């Protein structure tokens, strides 16, 4: 981990006022979510909140319901019970389009890029909700059909620059190595200028160097764009370094919720998870 980054993190987590204004009010509340698949309970009665500007991690052993939780938050799964309170409105359930159009973007555990398109086009898809040109304008590439393309390209180029993927701009993503695909996927999410960014195991399968890069990008996104981040990650070092607060799930239930330090010291967590994973 990059030194300056973890220092910044530490000061923020021990003293939320240390970085003036970085962490604000609650913007999302998960309220008593219960989710079943057939007869199996994937999530049972889980509640927690996410504050504006923080990095919130969701951890837990395999099958703890972490990914399902993210899927509920951005509306891909509709839970049987409970609701999502987001930015002043209650959604029960959240629908994918609501989530996307209200500034929730995400990446996926197994990369879900559009394989036949280039890096540039993939990231451009992140801007789709912001494009308003009519079909005719697009068909003739006139008016907004043209001006929007240029305008959003400019923004997308900033994302590309930010993620340092200039060299692969026009490469079809199917040909890229895994680490770069993950980065492109992050780019697609960032292109939507999300208020809340959900990252599902952004570092899975990466080597150390790639993990460091990715951590740096996550910190930069959080600090410089003020984007709130909810993160699922298995690498405990990364989680503890990056997060302001951590939710621990186990077998679909909430096990603990607090700062990395609190969670680290929580006996239930140690028993269920950390003690085993921290080898």
């Amino acid at each position, binding site marked *: 981990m990059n030194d300056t980054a973890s220092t910044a993190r530490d000061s923020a987590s021990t003293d939320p006022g240390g970085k003036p204004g970085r962490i604000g009010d609650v913007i999302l509340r998960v309220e008593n979510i219960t989710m079943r698949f057939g007869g199996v309970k994937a999530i049972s009665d889980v509640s927690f909140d996410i504050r504006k500007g923080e990095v919130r991690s969701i951890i837990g052993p395999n099958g703890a319901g972490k990914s399902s939780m993210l899927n509920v938050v951005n509306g891909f799964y509709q839970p049987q019970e409970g609701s999502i309170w987001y930015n002043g409105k209650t959604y029960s359930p959240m629908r994918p389009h609501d989530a996307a159009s209200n500034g929730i973007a995400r990446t996926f555990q197994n990369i879900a890029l559009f394989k036949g398109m280039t890096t540039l086009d993939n990231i451009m898809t992140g801007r789709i909700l912001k494009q308003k040109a009519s079909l005719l304008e697009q068909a003739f590439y006139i008016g907004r059909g043209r001006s929007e393309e240029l305008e959003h390209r400019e923004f997308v*180029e900033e994302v590309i620059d930010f993620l340092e993927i200039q060299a692969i701009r026009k490469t079809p993503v199917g040909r890229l190595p895994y680490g770069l695909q993950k980065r492109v996927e992050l780019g697609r999410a960032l292109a939507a200028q999300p208020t809340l960014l959900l990252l599902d195991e952004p570092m899975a399968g990466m080597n150390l160097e790639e993990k460091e890069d990715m951590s740096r990008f996550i910190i930069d996104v959080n600090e410089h764009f003020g984007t709130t981040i909810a993160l699922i990650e298995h690498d405990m070092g990364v989680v503890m370094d990056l997060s302001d607060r951590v939710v621990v799930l186990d077998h679909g239930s909430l096990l603990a919720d607090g700062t990395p330090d609190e969670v680290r010291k929580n006996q239930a967590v140690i028993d269920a998870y950390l003690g085993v994973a921290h080898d």
Partner: protein
Amino acid sequence: MTGSQTYSAAAMPPSADLPNLDIYDTFPKLLRYNAQRHGTRPSMREKSYGIWQSYTWAEVKDEVFRFAAGMKELGVERGDKIAIIGDNRPRMYWTICVAQCLGAIPVPVYQDSVAAEIHYPLEHAEVRFAVVEDQEQVDKLLSIKDRLPKLETIIYDEPRGVRDYPQPFLHHYDVVVARGAELLAQDPSLIDDEVDKGQHDDISIIPYTSGTTGNPKGVSLSFRNVMRAAYNGAIFEGLRSTDESLAYLPIAWIGDHIFSYGQAFICGFCVACPENSETVLTDLRELGPTYFFAPPRIFENILTTVMIRMEDAGTLKRKMFHFFMDHARKVGVKILDGKSVGLVDRLTYGLGELLVFGPLKNVLGLTRVRIGYTAGEAIGPDIFSFYRSIGVNLKQLYGSTEAAVFITIQPNGEIYDDTVGTPAPEVELRIAESGEVMFRSPGVFVEYFKNPEATKSAKTEDGWVHTGDAGFVDDRGHLKIIDRAKDVGKLNNGTLFAPKYIENKLKFFPNIKEVVAFGHERDYCACFINIDLEAVGSWAERNNLSYASYQDLSSRKEVYEIVRAHVEKVNRDLSQEEMVAGSQIKRFLLLPKMLDADDGELTRTSKVRRGFIAEKYQPLIDALYDPNAKTGTIKSEITFEDGRKGMLDATVDIVDVEQFTSAGGGFKAAAE
């Protein structure tokens, strides 16, 4: 020998297209001029955010003035030094001009140096301000800041990662420029007044040269030095405002300063910066510069890549490629030089241009090159003529920081692969008694900054500068550099002996990896040769010659025969050159092992350690100089690749080589 003769080129008549340097006598004044004259023409481009972002001269002038105003408020005073550390970015170049606007002196520093290397020039130049590219450079400076008491303020361009640094002396470029814009709005003549104060003989820049020994020296160059030299180079080559060049070599290097800054300001042409150092070749291809500079190493790498990539081509295409390349070797250079060539040859070449040369230049990005320079070290004749034969007007030039680059340039139509050309306009050249090349020109530096002793030993009272290189001017009036002056020796019969010159000639053969030539204070020249395992090995494979080891391969008669032919060829070349004709190689042997840095035979930068080798292989040298010995025997400790030590015990053959009489003598060069 004509040691005291002076060779010089007359000043060329000033060009009507270029500004009058008596009026526009500093770069900031030129900038104002260009903003008027070439206002809407591009001044700089930078590949960023996916396209070539372009800035016109008018925009650049406004930006430079804004930044200058901001810097002035930060406390820059006339005579201050401003360090510039960063990759080739427009803002880095603009900073040079900003400093000059304010009467301060830019000190460009190599951006890839580690913090410890940066420390000396910054401390020595008493730098108060540093303008740097990004977090990496900021971090370097912060790590040595407490040892740089004079350094007050750091301005960074790329805010990423630096934004939250707490240090109060860190400023973001954008913020300084924005502040400058406000100041200019209040007082529009703020910077113009400062620019007007600039004088032709003010120091314009202090680049630091890395000496082989001791600390780097700061070379104080005045506006006169840089501008006159750049101007002369520009009229010599007919540079114009429509030219485009790619700035990818370090800003701190004098060549880049002249080509990408000095000449760009004088001619008003456009300089483009690549996206980053990894994309240079792609960017080169996109941009297609008309004015291009690269050290021999880069031309060599490109050529190697070309050959390797062609190896993968289908048989037919490969045959076609080689057919036309062979043809180009025969007539390409002549066509480029405008000499008469038979119609059939010309048509064949035209077909080659369509099928091979044109596309090849295109994929390499050299299609539009009008003038290409290479310098810095000797370029292999094969490499040099490859580019010329496909129609790239590549030339060698000889220069130094102390000359503001130009000493000699190869004039169009008079390009020889073994010379570095004739004196540039207004340059006087002299070969000292010792054989050392000396020059005098408007570009001659003012002094070594804060180092009068060094200045004195490098520059005579009447302005002649020692280059430290040995060379001579041939009968065509072209300068030929043979070696560093201190390495040049003499044979017992008094003939000049330039080991590196001979070694380089041999090393241009792909089969030869390393050469050590002996001859100083001996009767004749003889040498050790290392074959190139890869090249000779693949030759052996093709000819079904099996071998067990390097030592085995080196001892083969067939291999000796190949090398002997190479040596003979070199002798023949040497015989053509009056100065060195007497130092033809008489005998050689193939060393049974590769010279190796692990055994102390090479330096870590792969330079031959002559003295050490002479000692270690004394018996072999003795054998070389024993006319009766047909073999030599050596016992020595060696290190294997896996680090084990072992004993080398070998007997090697010694081969005599034919000597040729000098030019005009009785032999006829076999056509090859």
